[in-house]
Structure formats: structure tokens, C-alpha cells
């Protein structure tokens, strides 16, 4: 969690220093959710999420140098500079992005579950979304399919209270978000996302159900982001400084976890300090690596578009694939 926190803070500084273009959707405050969930992954479990994807990327084990280089748009980035902040992928770690259209990734997550089941593997797909995504039609279509076909898909709603500047109250009708699962006969539950133990406890149960019985689940996790929707969000119009400070001081997942580990004697102040310093050093190293790396070239723009164009010796089609 500390590594995610320091990476996000370092990215923010880089963005403010004009090293990063476009959007930056920071995960600061939500670390326990990604770490709690991804730490439970088995060999045949998969993860997909939306654009607030840095936390999940680090939690599944991606290299922070490649992640920072991707933010800088360098060719050494995890997507060769072609995706940017919203599009981190690592198939070898069963991590499928990193998606920009709200809710658009959820049918893909259902598809991952479909594929796992089709191949006879004992695994589950965790498909993450925010509170705002639950109003997208594609999400409902995916839930219906998962229930109809008994797909091992866990729909994880990271409810950080605000969909950009719009609160749940102003966007979502009905008794709640996870409750909508009942319409499809899908079991749902909620948990407190600032407590990493509670996240793991809740998710462990639904993962077992998915892997062993192919039962989908909806889990709504109560969490909070300290920064705006993206770095460009002044976030003055929809919440108060007091609310943010309350979370930072009283509900921060890192502070809570550290306190527990200190009390249990697993950590000392010194060893905790070392973890923090190492996380900062890692983030700085990532930024140095990104800074020193080259950009892609103009010739790179039209690569990685077609599998066939990237594998010319195996191409069976003919004719022109590009038109300028």
C-alpha cells in the first residue's frame, strides 16, 4: 500500500512538473481495496478495472519503472507509451487493464470469467468499477449474463462516494448500488474498504464461491479518494476540506494497518520507516528511469495495431492495412 501511495504522490509531482500529459486519476486513499483484493489472486484469477488503475497495477506486481515511463509517454512504458495513465496492462500477471470508458470494461470482465470457465480452470475474474459506473447499461447487461450463465465474475464496486463531481445521492436512484444485484439474483455484500483485513475477508468468501461454484457476486467496497477525480479536478464544488481531512486523519488505510502491525509487534517504527523510505526511493527511481527513457518514434505509431502487421512472417491476409 505504501508503494502505491508514494508512486501516486510522485506521479502527481511529475504531472505538476509537466512531465505527464492527459489525465491522471490517483488512487490515494483507496489502496486497501486493490491490495486487499489482488493479494488473494490465484494462478487462474484475473483482474480488470477502469482508469483509476495504478493501484491495481502495482498490487498485481507490475514494475513501477515501466508504469512511470508509461505516464511520461516513453517507449519503455508498459504499453510502449501508447496507452498512458488509463491503460496499464499485464496479461502475464492476469491483469487486463486499465480502461477509459466508464463501465465499458465490465463486459470484458464477464468475458474473462467466461473464458476461465470455458477452459475448465478454477478461477475467478474480479471486475472493478466505480460508483458512477453502476448506472451504465453495459454493467447491467454483464451482470445479467454472469447470473444467467453462472460465470465466476465478481463485480467490485469501489464506492468512493463521488463520480467525478456527482455524489451517489445525485446520480443513483434506488436503495443502493450493490442492492441492484438482487434484480439478477446475484448475491451482494458490502464492506469497509479502509480496513485491509475486512476487504480480504469479504473478497475471500466470494472468490471461493466463484472458483468452486461458478457463482457471481457483487461486492460494494466503501472507500475514499483524497485527491480529485483527476488531477485537473479542483474538487471544491462537491465536497468539503473537512470531509477529506477526516478521512486522511481518522480513516486512512495505511495508518490503520500500520497501527495494527505495530500493536502485534510485526512492525516497529523503525522498520515501518524503512518501508516508507524504500517506497519513496522506488518511486524516485521510477521517475528517473522515465525521465531518461526515449520517446517512441514516428515509425512506432502504426505498430501494435494489427497482430498480423506485427507478425509479418505469419500474415495470411494480403492488401493494405493502413491508409496514409
Amino acid at each position, binding site marked *: 500500500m505504501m508503494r502505491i501511495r508514494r508512486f501516486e504522490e510522485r506521479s502527481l509531482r511529475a504531472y505538476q512538473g509537466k512531465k505527464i500529459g492527459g489525465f491522471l486519476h490517483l488512487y490515494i486513499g483507496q489502496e486497501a481495496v486493490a491490495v486487499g483484493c489482488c493479494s488473494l489472486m490465484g494462478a487462474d484469477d484475473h483482474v480488470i478495472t477502469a482508469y483509476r488503475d495504478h493501484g491495481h497495477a502495482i498490487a498485481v506486481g507490475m514494475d513501477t519503472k515501466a508504469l512511470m515511463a508509461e505516464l511520461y509517454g516513453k517507449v519503455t512504458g508498459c504499453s510502449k507509451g501508447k496507452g498512458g495513465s488509463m491503460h496499464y496492462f499485464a496479461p502475464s500477471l492476469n491483469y487486463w487493464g486499465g480502461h477509459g470508458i466508464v463501465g465499458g470494461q465490465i463486459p470484458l470482465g464477464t468475458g474473462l470469467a467466461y*473464458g476461465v470457465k470455458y477452459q475448465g480452470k478454477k478461477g475467478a475474474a474480479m471486475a472493478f468499477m466505480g460508483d458512477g459506473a453502476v448506472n451504465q447499461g453495459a454493467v447491467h447487461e454483464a451482470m445479467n449474463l454472469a447470473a444467467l450463465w453462472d460465470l465466476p465474475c465478481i463485480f467490485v464496486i469501489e464506492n468512493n462516494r463521488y463520480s467525478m463531481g456527482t455524489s451517489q445521492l445525485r446520480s443513483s436512484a434506488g436503495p443502493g448500488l450493490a442492492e441492484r444485484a438482487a434484480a439478477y439474483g446475484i448475491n451482494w455484500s458490502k464492506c469497509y474498504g479502509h480496513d485491509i483485513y475486512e476487504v480480504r475477508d469479504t473478497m475471500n468468501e466470494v472468490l471461493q464461491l466463484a472458483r468452486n461454484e461458478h457463482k457471481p457476486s457483487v461486492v460494494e467496497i466503501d472507500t475514499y479518494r483524497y485527491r480529485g477525480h483527476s488531477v485537473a479536478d479542483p474538487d471544491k464544488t462537491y465536497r468539503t476540506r473537512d470531509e477529506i481531512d477526516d478521512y486522511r486523519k481518522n480513516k486512512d488505510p495505511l495508518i490503520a494497518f500500520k497501527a495494527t502491525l505495530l500493536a502485534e509487534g510485526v512492525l516497529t517504527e523503525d522498520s515501518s520507516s524503512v518501508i516508507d523510505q524504500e517506497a519513496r526511493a522506488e518511486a524516485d527511481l521510477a521517475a528517473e528511469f522515465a525521465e531518461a527513457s526515449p520517446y517512441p518514434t514516428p515509425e512506432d505509431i502504426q505498430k501494435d495495431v494489427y497482430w498480423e502487421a506485427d507478425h509479418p512472417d505469419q500474415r495470411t491476409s494480403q492488401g493494405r492495412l493502413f491508409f496514409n
Partner: protein
Amino acid sequence: MPVLTYREAVRAALSEELARDENVVLMGEEVAQFNGAYKVSEGLLDKFGPKRIVDTPISEAGFIGTGIGASMLGIRPVMELMFWSFYSVAFDQILNNAANVRYMSGGLINCPIVIRGPANGGTNVGATHSHTPENVLANHPGVKVVVPSTPADAKGLLKSAIRDNDPVFFLENTILYGEKGEVSDDKDLLIPLGLADVKREGTDLTIVTYGRCVLHSLAAAEIIAEKHGASVEVVDLRSIRPLDFDTVLKSVAKTHRVLIVEEQKPFCSVGSQLGFMIQEEAFDELDAPILRVSTLDAPAIYSPPMETVQLPSIERVVAAVLKVLAS
């Protein structure tokens, strides 16, 4: 060689590829128990069972997105759209996810999907069921677009499409489903994407076309030969993207006059792209401006006789050929 209908040819391709590769799955509305809205998948459920032939609810965004997600793990879904008109319900999945995931991941992922179904007007089903979106689809780098006109082309191209590791969009035609033609039963016979076919050789004018308009063009060419003594060459593109432009250029160099015939609304149609490319690369070969016969520029009208007027027809093709020849 056996004679099959276009429908039977598509079915044969599906059956052969389902038997060949256990990762191939056919999914869509009414494809299994109903035997297919247009009977293309008739008998396949009995032959392959419900794991391979999957009925979906009416959820294009949901089931197409599911197929795309599964393809990232190596499943090869062939997803049927009852009408290609319904693609717009799944636009985000098709043209943001399938088209872009490879690029956004820097080449780490590919989506070996096929989406197939009929794309045509001419059956009085109105403005929302008569779309021919090959131009819209082909505008997206990362996808492939195929529009076969004959049973043999349909079978050979669909087999290639299913084996292709990129997303391939395969546009059929309900009016062509009953058309008959010779089709090889060689299970290994593939027609590559991106290879056009000169369906009729000629010397005085080139018609560049695809899909059902190939049939109109061939009929028009007969009339032109009999009644006007001119020789028309008909180039069937078969594949919009990748595009066999060399065959087009070769024909233009021979005849020096071009007519594009397309069942497309005119603005930014496939013909718009072709016209630009021909004048860009073969300007000096042209003895006349390039003309085209397209769908009349309005939403698809219901009234049956007027829909016939709205769509390309043999009469309009003949008139246009004469105009280009006289130019």
C-alpha cells in the same frame, strides 16, 4: 463441385471451423435452439452442443463485450448480430475495446473475434434495420472488414476470418442468403482477406464494387455488352480492410474509366475512400471523372417500391456506366 446457397456456405464454414478448433464458439440471439433467425446456424446446436453454440439474451453490448473479454484468453468467439444494424448498441465494445485493446496495451493483447451477420437494405425493414456500416467499421485501425458476394467467397473468407488473430467483421446479406453457387468442400480451402476478385474481365470501364452490388454490376455489364457494345470489368473487392488496391489500380490502368457501385449512403462511404485513392495514385490513368452509384441519401425508407428506388439497381448502374463512357 457441389452447389450451395450462400447461407449453406456460411454454415459449412462455421461447421468446419467449429470442428477444427475447440476454442471456436458461436454466440448470438437465436443461433442455437431457434436454428438462427435466418437459418444460417441450422443444425449446429445438434451437432456441437450448447457449450459451442450459445443463445444470448438481447444484450449486444453485454455479449459482444463478453466475447471480446474471452478472446483475450484465447477463446475464438464468432458472434452473430441478427442485423449488423444492431452494432450501434455495442459500439463502445466493438470500436473502443476490440479495435483498441491491442494498441493501448502496446501489443501485449490481441482479440481474435469474428462478428458476423447480415448488413443490407432491400427487405422493407425500415431505417433502423437496414444499415450497411462497413465504412464506419473500416474507419477504425485495428479491425478488418469483409463483405463477400458469393457462396464460395463467403465460405473461404469466413474460414480465414475465424482463423485470423485480429478482430474481423463479416458482413453478409439476407437477400444473398438464397443465392446459389459452386462451393468447394475442401476443408482446407481458404480465401485470404485483402484479395479482390475480378468477377468479369473487360476493357472499357472498371466497376469497383462489393457485396450485393456485384450482382447488379454483373447484370448491368451484360446489358452494356449486348445493347451498347462496350466491355465492362467488374472488380469485387471482397475485403474492405485490408484492401486489395493493386487489383483496382491494375484495372484502372487497363480501362481508364471508373464507376464505383456501393450500397452505402454517400457521405464518407467506402466509395469516398476509393475515389480519393484512385485519383491520388492513378490520376494520369483516368480519362473521365470517377462516378459512383450509392444509396440515395436519406434514412432507409419503408415503402417497398421507393426502397427499391433508393438502393442501387441494375438500371442505375447501366445509366451511370453510360455516363462515364460518354464523359
